[in-house]
């Protein structure tokens, strides 16, 4: 249906895409994978008409076409769900789904009855029967917003649908729903391009997988190909896995007794020195809310937090940092990074000591940290905006490690990050525990939790429903606990 022949694209001397030839067919779910910077986004931008290829031809239904802008792409029947949100919070679900093709009555006014009916029908088709089209988008959870984003793309009845990391904010069960929707569309003959970093998903949903590396096409392979092999194609080498080891010392660092607050209750656990305590659970199960309270961002309304046996009263993150507790938030761009500032300024953003700022010393320290964390950049004055997701995440880690913390709370540390950066972050986390630091790891990726954690606490409906030791923990058990099935 869509054929890209020998597409090349250059950005000020950098070859973003080189001679890429890819064919996308009707009724086939075609997965696209590659590390960050492999050229996936550029390719999608070319298909959507945001960028024009410097070389090569695009064929749509055997006809050569020129996609000049997004409107042209939409008219041709190509629709995309971006990683970033495009919804307007203050409008209803229905208005968000039909921003352009809004039904109107004769004089040009919006026909709300028809609009809501259309939207309801679409929501039903997608199995989102519990949502009313009149609900305002701001009242939805992140995952629900993602589903509306997908609904919006489908509402254009595309013949080619592109999804860029659609499951990044979805839980296990919501992912299942999405997959059902995609299979449905596929049977109707819609072509689907599916971009994701999650290997297990790619293999589950897609028919064929194409791999890009450094702007070049590597191979198109059957989705049954073993994951190891796909990763090797993407990275160009075998990944050395971190050994499953433990650095736990028998010394209680943090003890939480029965704390409660907005979004969580009855939380008790102990964190040992050098331990990685994993937190599993669905979106909204209270993990992030609890983490924010441990960092002093929100107040606790009951219970006690003890560090090294002393009770802490935290009113502001600065006090938590003072006590050696740091927090890497889940949403890097919104909560963690200063994209308009340089690497070294970002790293020194958490410097609490007042006094004079010396840019030369800051740059020096940053340079050392960049080496230690293998942050790939030409200069420490580079703006964060220009780094890849993986490098940005490493800058955040470096920023907090420069504070010499004792307890590190990390929330979804590898969200939307390419595989080799992921591996490096795992190594860094392990390295920190070897240094005697303790880690609270919140993650929605079960393999990651199982791989890193010494113990895993599972949260359900604002409470800890069970804490599993490394021996007890399996994907099935965690998934069962997280959905409220207490399997004793």
């Amino acid at each position, binding site marked *: 249906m869509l054929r890209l022949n020998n597409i090349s694209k250059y950005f000020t001397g950098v070859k973003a895409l080189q001679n890429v030839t890819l064919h996308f067919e009707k009724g086939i779910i075609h997965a696209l994978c590659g590390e960050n910077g492999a050229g996936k986004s550029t390719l999608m931008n070319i298909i959507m008409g945001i960028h024009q290829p410097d070389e090569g031809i695009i064929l749509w239904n055997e006809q050569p076409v020129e996609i000049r802008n997004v409107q042209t792409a939409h008219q041709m029947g190509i629709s995309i769900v971006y990683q970033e949100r495009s919804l307007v919070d203050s409008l209803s679900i229905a208005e968000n789904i039909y921003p352009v093709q809004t039904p109107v009555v004769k004089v040009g006014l919006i026909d709300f009855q028809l609009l809501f009916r259309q939207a309801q029908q679409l929501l039903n088709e997608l199995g989102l029967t519990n949502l009313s089209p009149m609900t305002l988008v701001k009242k939805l959870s992140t995952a629900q917003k993602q589903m509306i984003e997908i609904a919006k793309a489908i509402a254009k009845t595309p013949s080619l649908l592109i999804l860029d990391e659609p499951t990044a904010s979805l839980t296990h069960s919501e992912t299942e729903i999405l997959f059902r929707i995609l299979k449905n569309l596929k049977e109707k003959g819609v072509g689907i391009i599916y971009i994701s970093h999650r290997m297990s998903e790619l293999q589950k949903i897609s028919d064929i997988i194409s791999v890009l590396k450094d702007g070049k096409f590597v191979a198109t392979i059957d989705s049954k190909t073993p994951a190891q092999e796909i990763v090797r194609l993407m990275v160009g080498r075998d990944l050395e896995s971190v050994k499953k080891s433990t650095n736990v010392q028998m010394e209680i660092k943090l003890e939480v007794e029965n704390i409660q607050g907005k979004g969580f209750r009855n939380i008790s656990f102990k964190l040992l020195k050098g331990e990685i305590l994993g937190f599993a659970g669905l979106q909204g199960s209270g993990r992030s809310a609890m983490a924010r309270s441990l*960092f002093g961002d929100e107040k606790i309304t009951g219970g006690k937090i003890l560090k090294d046996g002393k009770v802490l009263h935290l009113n502001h993150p600065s006090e938590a940092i003072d006590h050696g507790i740091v927090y890497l*938030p889940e949403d890097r761009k*919104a909560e963690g990074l200063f994209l308009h500032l340089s690497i070294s300024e970002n790293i020194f953003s*958490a410097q609490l000591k007042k006094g004079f700022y010396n840019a030369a010393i800051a740059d020096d320290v940053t340079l050392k940290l960049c080496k230690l964390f293998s942050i790939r950049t030409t200069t420490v004055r580079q703006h964060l905006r220009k780094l890849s997701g993986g490098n940005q995440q490493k800058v955040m880690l470096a920023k907090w490690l420069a504070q010499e913390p004792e307890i590190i709370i990390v929330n979804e540390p590898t969200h939307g990050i390419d595989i080799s950066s992921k591996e490096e972050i795992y190594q860094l986390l392990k390295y920190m525990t070897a240094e005697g630091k303790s880690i609270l790891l919140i993650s929605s990726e079960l393999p990651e939790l199982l791989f890193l954690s010494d113990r895993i606490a599972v949260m359900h409906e604002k409470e800890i429903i069970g804490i599993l030791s490394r021996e007890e923990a399996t994907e099935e058990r965690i998934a069962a606990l997280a959905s409220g099935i207490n399997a004793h």
Partner: protein
Amino acid sequence: MQLKERLQDRVFSLAASILILCIIMTFIFPTQFPTVENFSQLLLNLSIDTIVAVGMMILLISGMFDLSVGSIVAFSGGLAGYLMYYHDVNFIIAILAGLSGSLLIGFVNGWLIAIAGINPMIQTLAMMGIVRGLALMLSGAGIQNFPYNFIYIGQSKLFGLQAPVWYMIFIVLLFSFLVNRTVFFRRYYFIGGNERAAKLSGIQVEKMKIAAFVLSASLAGIAGILLSSRLGAALATSGRGLELRVITAVILGGASLSGGFGKIFGALLGALFMALINNLLIIGRVSGYWQEIILGLVLIVAVGLDQWLIRKMEK
């Protein structure tokens, strides 16, 4: 640094434009433009605006702005004048009263914005009206006949330059140093860039915001005292329209309304550039009406050029 990057640095490009403008004007008006009197007058005219612009720059770096500064200029001069004229208060106490009044207004602005969560535009717009009313009550049709000591502050000269120019130079140098080199002031860049991330980095965002409004109002207070001392009169109408002029200068100087960018020297250069254009029009005997039109066009061209360069860089 490459030329392209240099061009994106507003302090550099503005300084270059000012230099070019000066050279051109020297050739066109060799007898009127490059004279000590002209420059001394030009600097005097921009000194009040620049002192206020320094505070405004810090607010814009942190992603906020203050529309009440123009009214505060009239209020602080008015309060000091009122106390000296009607109550024979010592000039030092009168000045301190004017400054503390301004500081208090800044605190109220900051508290209502940072703690109560009122939008800065709405809060300072309201305060602009309230404070202008207070200034009218204090100075009515205008107060004159100030003690010599008070007049001396704004009318004395040193090395051929009037006192307000020296105050301006001192304030610009001081704050330029503080903003570049102290951890405290550098935090405004973090707050302006990403407020949420700033809080999660341990920065006391609310307190910092209040401090920024207090600082901006205090600088406006100083400007008000200097202005009434220089004019030898406290007028209820002084500083009218100053807030928008100052915001224009600061934006020209490289600040962004969304926060996170800007340098103190940019505020000075922005004000200087505007004063130069003004000077050019006066010497060239162009009608005063053109002044506003040309400044509006200059602002659009400067910001538009920036956007164009950014887009060009990304391609």
